[in-house]
Structure formats: structure tokens, C-alpha cells
């Protein structure tokens, strides 16, 4: 299996705080990688570094054989890296349709293709009925869907999801998982950040565990729950 994304010794500091400490990960094409860790362990920061929202202080991000460490976020999107934000970020005063279509339009030159792709993304996420609504009128679940639609509309090779299940009911989580599986079957690679390991058991073949910005475990989720250090980190929080 050839790797799609390689992070080599990524380090990110905020003042004195080391949010990521020499973290290296590798993700294969078509894989679903889970990233877990307690609050403040650096998961979101890792997503920010991969998507280019933050630049690493040290280390490299290599995507599809190309060093993207210094590229701006929108360039990475056009190369095939998409992301969602923790807690759903949308343009509150633009209709759902434009929330999705603007990303499509910035990647595809041809307006007809952009439009068709937008319709496809809205269909996959079951948002056609809400296309004219403003995000401020939507439920948290639908907002999450808007974010996912926006992330997949640019034809990504790699999608980074930051806590996609947070605040959703069990059925809603199933819906999100279905979409992830569907796209994964089409060959899209995922990195899924989750606070809780439970949801990743079904999805990810492999998880990385972060604690205080350090990678403390890498392997199948079934082994993660047996690992002593991981259990220790989660003591009180609960692994499952």
C-alpha cells in the first residue's frame, strides 16, 4: 500500500506550549485513520497543520509525494486535501447551496461541472431540501452535513474530519458513518479525529493516540483499548 500522506516530525508550539511534539504519521491510500486523545492533546492542531491553517514550526507534511508544508490552505484543497472544523463552521448568512457551491467553484473552472458536483454533494448528504435554507435555521446534524458536503465537493483524495460525531444522536452518527463508508468505497482516504474511541472501532483499521502533543500509540483500535498507556491517559474519561 503506497502512502498518501506522510507527516515527518511535525512540531507546533504556541508560545511555551508544545501542542505537537515531533509527531510522525503515515496514511495509506484508501485508508481510514483514527486519531484519538484527550482534550487539548493536539488533535485539532494536527488537522490544522495538515490542512495548512497553521504552519508547523518543524517537520514536513508530504501529500501524494509532494512537500506541501509551506502551501496555503486553498492550494492544498485544490491538490485534494479537504477538512471540516470542530463544532461545524459554515457561512451563517449564505444559503446552504452557496456554502457548498463556492468551494466547488474555486476548484472547478467549468461552472457546469461545479454545479453538477454541488448537486452531487448535496444529494449524498441529503441536503437538497435544505439547499435554500440559511445555516442559522438548521439543526446541528444538518450543519454537520453541510460541512461534509463542502468538504467532499472539491473531489478530495484525503478528507480530515474533526470530531464529526460530537453532539449527534446514535442514528445521526450512523448516517455520518454511512457517508464516510460510501466515499471510502469510492477510494477517498479519511483521517477522523475523535475524542471517544467507541465510534472509531467500526470505522478505522488503525488509530493514532495523542497525549500532550506526543504520539503514544499507533495500531488497530482493538489493541489500543488494551494498551496500558492509553488506558492510563483515558483513566476517568473512559475509553469506550
Amino acid at each position, binding site marked *: 500500500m503506497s502512502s498518501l500522506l506522510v507527516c515527518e516530525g511535525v512540531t507546533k508550539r504556541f508560545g511555551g506550549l508544545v501542542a505537537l511534539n515531533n509527531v510522525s504519521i503515515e496514511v495509506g491510500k484508501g485508508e481510514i485513520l483514527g486519531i484519538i486523545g484527550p482534550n487539548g492533546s493536539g488533535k485539532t492542531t494536527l488537522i490544522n497543520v495538515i490542512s495548512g*491553517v497553521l504552519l508547523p514550526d518543524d517537520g514536513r507534511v508530504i501529500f501524494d509525494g509532494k512537500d506541501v508544508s509551506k502551501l496555503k490552505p486553498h492550494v492544498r484543497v485544490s491538490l485534494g486535501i479537504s477538512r471540516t472544523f470542530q463544532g461545524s463552521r459554515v457561512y451563517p448568512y449564505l444559503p446552504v447551496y*452557496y456554502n457548498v*457551491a463556492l468551494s466547488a*467553484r474555486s476548484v472547478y473552472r467549468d461552472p457546469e461541472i461545479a454545479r*453538477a458536483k454541488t448537486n*452531487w454533494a448535496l444529494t449524498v448528504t441529503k441536503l437538497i431540501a435544505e439547499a435554500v435554507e440559511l445555516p442559522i435555521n438548521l439543526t446541528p446534524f444538518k450543519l454537520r452535513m453541510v460541512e461534509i458536503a463542502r468538504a467532499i465537493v472539491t473531489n478530495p483524495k484525503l478528507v480530515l474530519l474533526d470530531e464529526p460525531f460530537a453532539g449527534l444522536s446514535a442514528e445521526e452518527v450512523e448516517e455520518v458513518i454511512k457517508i464516510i463508508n460510501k466515499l471510502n468505497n469510492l477510494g477517498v482516504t479519511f483521517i477522523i479525529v475523535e475524542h471517544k474511541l467507541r465510534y472509531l472501532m467500526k470505522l478505522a483499521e488503525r488509530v493514532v493516540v495523542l497525549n500532550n502533543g506526543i504520539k503514544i500509540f499507533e495500531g488497530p483500535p482493538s489493541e489500543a483499548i488494551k494498551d496500558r498507556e492509553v488506558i492510563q491517559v483515558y483513566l476517568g474519561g473512559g475509553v469506550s
Partner: protein
Amino acid sequence: MAFAKPSIKRRLVRYVPSITIMVAYSCIPLLGIRGFWLDVLTRANIFALLTLSLDLYSGTTFYLNLGISFIAGSSAYVVALLYRYLGMVPEYSIIPAIAVAIALSTVIFLPSIRVRGVYFSVLSLLLPLIMVSLITSQPLSLYLGGEGGIPLPSLFSSYARMLPPRERIPFLQLTWFYLTTALTIVAAVLSYKLAYSNFGFMLRAIGQDEELAEASGIDTTRVKLLGFLVSSTLAATAGALYAAIRPPVTVDVLIPANTLVPPLTAVILGGMGTIIGPLATNYITIVAYELLWDAIGRWRTIAYMLLLIVLVILKPQGVVFHIYLKLRKAIATKLSSVTWR
């Protein structure tokens, strides 16, 4: 949901109201309105360009480009200086002046457009004021006209001289009115198209969450720069026309109270980013302003400012919904006009 594009006939029907308004406005001189009020409308046309400039960029991104006074002022001064030093009359100098003003404002504002909204806005407000003190103090006042300004022949005055003296001023007033009306109509149509195009929505997206826009694929620097350029072009055109129609060119064009506050009021009162609202408000407020002169005289400036404060505090963003309603139908058409795999 088989849904064809609207027929040509239906699309024409949609444009009937706006075309009617444009034609009616162009017919105003035929009603016998001349002299002072025609001048007021000509000035309102020029201010309409400033209003469009402000609404297109600041109304969508919420980055206050308070520098429209600077841009308009620079192009006015270039028109004046080209006459003073090269003998170029406004007929020829308007276009080079616009180009120079755009280049100048881009060089100065580019670093702050890239960075942060706050710095950009403060810089853009204070810059024209610095220009004023530069122009009115030694030694530059000798070259830039100082307090008295720079005299120049007004636009088309060489043609007017061929007419008998009594017909000259009416001819000029009418020509200026039609010229500025035509330019304003073109600018308004283009601004409207742009504000409601994908590009316009990208500007709005940047205004609502710039980090998200960048992270979801929009080249925010490029979009902001392009938006700024279009906006600058409109402001520079207004400035050059103002110089050519109302000489001499004095520091008055640079003073934000004169050239920034009226468009800003129109944009906020009319609904930020809607183009039509600010445009209509521009004409209403300018005519009202003239009518108010008799009633409250110099207090009108203060009345304007108080109105601005009250408006800003009372209705921060109610206008957004106007855009939204307008979009419902457009989106429905887009969704149904394309098939996908």
C-alpha cells in the same frame, strides 16, 4: 424535476422594472428640470459610483475601505496635475488618471489588505487626511495648489465655446448629466452582476468567515485583491469625473466628510451588499440633503452623522435576509437544471 432555464421572454420580464427606472431617470431633463437640480443629479450620479465602490467591496466583505476618499482624491488630483504640468485637458486625462489612482492605492493598501481588517480600515481613513495636510503645507503646496486648489478647464468646455454664450452652460450641464448617467447605469449593472455572481458570494464568504473560506478552497488573497481593484476603479472614475466637471480641484475631494460619509450612509442605510438599496438611498439622501439646506443649513452635516450613528446601532445586519429571499428562486433553478451521475 424537469425544469428548463427560464424562457427569454420571462427573463426580459424580470428586467422590466429596472429598465423602466433607468429610462425614466434619463428622461428627467425632458421634464424641464435644468440648472441647479440637474447639477445636483449629476453630482448624485458621481456619488452613486462611490456608493457602488463602497458597497461592492465593504458591503460584502465588511472590510471597511474607508479609502475611497483617497482613491477618488488621487485621481482628481492627477487630472488636475496633468493639466497644470502637461496641458492635458480632462477629455484625455481622465483615463490615465484612473489608472494612476488605482496603481497608487494598490501599492499603498496591498500590505494591509493582506493582513487584517482593522489596520486596513484605519489606514484607509487616515491616509486622505494626511494627503490634505501634505497638499496644504509648504513646500508641496506650491506644486499641488495648496488651499486654493488647481484650476482647469471643465470637461467639454472646448466644445461649448463653439456655442453662443447663453447656450454654453445649459449644454454643459446636459452633457455632463447624460455622461454621468450613462456611466452610472453601466457601473450599476456590472456591480449588480458581480455582487450576485460566484465572485460576489466569495467576497461575502470572506466577510463571514475568512479562515473557513481559505480552508475550503477559496483563494482569499486573490479574491480580496480583485474586489479591491474593481472597487478602486469605480472610486477613481468618480474622482476623475468630479475633477473634470467641478473644477478647480481642491482638498475637498480628499476630505472624508465630503466624499466618504455620504456613500457610507447610503450603504448602511440601504442595506450592505445589496447594491440596489445603497444605490437608491444615495439618490434619496443627496436630494434630501439639498432640500434640507434651507431648513437646517450647516447643521445638516451633524444631522447626517447622528443619523449614521443611530442607524448603525439600531440595524446591524437585518439586510442579509433581503439577499437570502432573492436567492431562493435562483437556487431552485440551479438545482434542477443539471443532472448528475
